């Protein structure tokens, strides 16, 4: 097991370096703008632009720049500095991380709870009207673009621009440490949006998985023993059905932490996704690189955790 974990971790690190290299080449070969000129401003003579380029290290060969980046990252966990504000990218990311974590974690709680509830109810009465209605509703939610859903919710329920003024709207996020109540209320709408599409997916997954496990022999045995239906479903059926789902939750949270840019943009939540989006529009490459890497890190770590989890549950995996 230890060897397997070490192997997975090593591959994870290598993967991260490969992703860094790929991104570096991509943004070096395909810059969206000239950072030196952007920093220099609208009216600038070539001399100063050249000086800025040298200051930012942009005149060095690609390989040197890459080596410096990797070295700083590996030795000092230093992601570099913003071309504009000189702010350290690491501090920017750490500053934005709580917002993104708040968004994803809260969303995950809602989608798991509602997905589980709806999934179980549907699985118990497959093909019933209730099942069809909830599965149909789930599909509609999966099909709705989340930014659109967010805007519609704002239009309907936001306290500032809504038709029915209930929840705080966009640009109302406050950190948990500043004001827990405001934090909670400001995140209600974003959570609903994050949860909507995922809850729908999970309801469908749980339904399928549960129907499958309820058909297994040991469930029939449990029923034969005279256990209550409630007990059979919750203690035996759901428990075995939920295992594969939990691993997917890990992966999804990993992906979401790095790609909540749409919801963050719509609701103006100062998270990692918004940071990345703003940096791209300003060609602030160190921030772009840092945020994408961070997001990749989430995905890779989630994958490793899931793999190790699998290996723990199913010894055959370790030797493959």
């Amino acid at each position, binding site marked *: 097991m230890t060897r397997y974990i070490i192997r997975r971790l090593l*591959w994870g690190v290598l*993967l*991260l370096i*490969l*992703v860094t290299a*790929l*991104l570096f080449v*991509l*943004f070096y*070969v*395909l*810059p*969206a*703008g000239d950072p030196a000129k952007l920093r220099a401003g609208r009216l600038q003579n070539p001399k100063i632009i050249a000086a800025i380029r040298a200051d930012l290290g942009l005149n060095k060969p690609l390989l040197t720049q890459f080596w410096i980046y990797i070295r700083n990252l590996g030795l000092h966990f230093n992601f570099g500095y913003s071309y504009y504000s000189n702010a350290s990218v690491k501090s920017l990311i750490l500053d934005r991380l709580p917002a993104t974590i708040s968004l994803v974690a809260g969303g995950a709680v809602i989608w798991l709870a509602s997905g589980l509830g709806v999934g179980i109810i549907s699985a118990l009465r*497959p*093909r019933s009207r209730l099942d069809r209605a909830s599965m149909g509703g789930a*599909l*509609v939610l*999966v*099909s*709705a*673009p*989340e*930014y*659109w859903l967010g*805007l*519609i919710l704002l*239009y309907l329920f936001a306290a500032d*621009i809504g038709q029915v003024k209930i929840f705080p709207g966009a640009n109302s996020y406050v950190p948990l440490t500043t004001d827990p109540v405001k934090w909670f209320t400001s995140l209600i709408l974003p959570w609903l949006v994050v949860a909507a599409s995922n809850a729908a*997916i999970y309801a*469908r*997954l749980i339904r*399928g998985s549960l*129907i*499958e496990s309820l058909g297994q022999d040991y469930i029939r045995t449990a029923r034969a023993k005279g256990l209550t239906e409630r007990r059979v479903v919750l203690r035996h059926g759901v428990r075995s059905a939920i295992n*594969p789902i939990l691993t*997917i939750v890990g*992966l*999804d949270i990993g*992906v*979401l932490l*790095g*790609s909540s*840019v*749409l919801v963050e*943009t719509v609701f103006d939540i100062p998270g990692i*996704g918004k940071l*990345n*989006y703003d940096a*791209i*529009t300003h*060609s602030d490459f160190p921030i*772009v690189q840092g*945020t*994408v890497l961070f*997001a*990749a890190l989430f*995905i*890779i770590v989630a*994958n490793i955790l899931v793999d190790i989890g699998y290996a723990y549950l199913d010894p055959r995996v370790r030797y493959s």
Partner: protein
Amino acid sequence: MSVGAAEIVPGGGLQLLDSDVEISARSPRQLFWRRFRRDRVAVASLIFIVLLIVVAIAAPLVVELLGLPGPNTQNPNLTDAFGSPLGPSSAHPFGVDPLGQDVASRVIYGTRVALIVGIVGTAIATVIGVFCGVIAGFYRGWADTLLSRLADVVLSIPLLMLGLGIGAACAVRGCLGGAVQPGIRTILFLIAFANWTYVYRIVRGLVLSLREREFVDAARALGASNTRIMFREILPNLVAPIIVYSTLLIPLNILFEAALSFLGVGIRPPTASWGQMIAAATPIFNTAWWYMAFPGIALLLTVLAFNLLGDGLQDALNPRTAR
């Protein structure tokens, strides 16, 4: 929505393997079709999609039949003194946008982008994924290692962030020596770049198990070449799962295009795209709800139809989950 691997794999791969284990006098394909026809929702979705394709191809005709102006007909008289667009009326059933362009007409033309991106993009990704998957699954060894690791790298990159970066970089002049031009070609490139990995993983798994089957041994005993075994013996067995799986990818890709266009790096005006219309509607959506609502509904219905169709196909292929 996030286009993570995790969301796609569970419904697909593992269960698809069971498809031709069915014991029956009828061929699996006949069974599949019989089951599919019984699923009224799926059939309705298929009809809806066919209709969409017709609308997309005949968009100019449809717009003319409905008596609407063209999608790029600007008319400043259709905005008020402050430049706010006017709402739905009999002449403009979905209202107009800030340029005085007819929203209904643009929604109809938007079908083209959605379907091209959804169908063509998915097709390109599928071809690449199937090819690599067959090679990796059949030869195993270093080809498999290399391709699988490459897929790992691609899957580790947050796709939407990458899309934002490439979309911004390839604006105006295009990039990669002009091969990736801004607009729809950038999106197709991104879809192909990311989506082949999903198809690849499924196909590779299927081929790994199929290559040990009797009919492959038989073909080999008869002296068939590797190429023949791969593409004439194994591949036909994969057609059904590949179709089902690609159908499930189409709605994801339509949403991906809309998301990129929403963020301003996808389809550029004057070409009509639903995502870009929603983006343009964002700053005025509290005064012009129609500009936001109708493209969004069109997007939702289209994605829903593909999801329902994919669902139906999957159930037909693997009836156990559909009980």
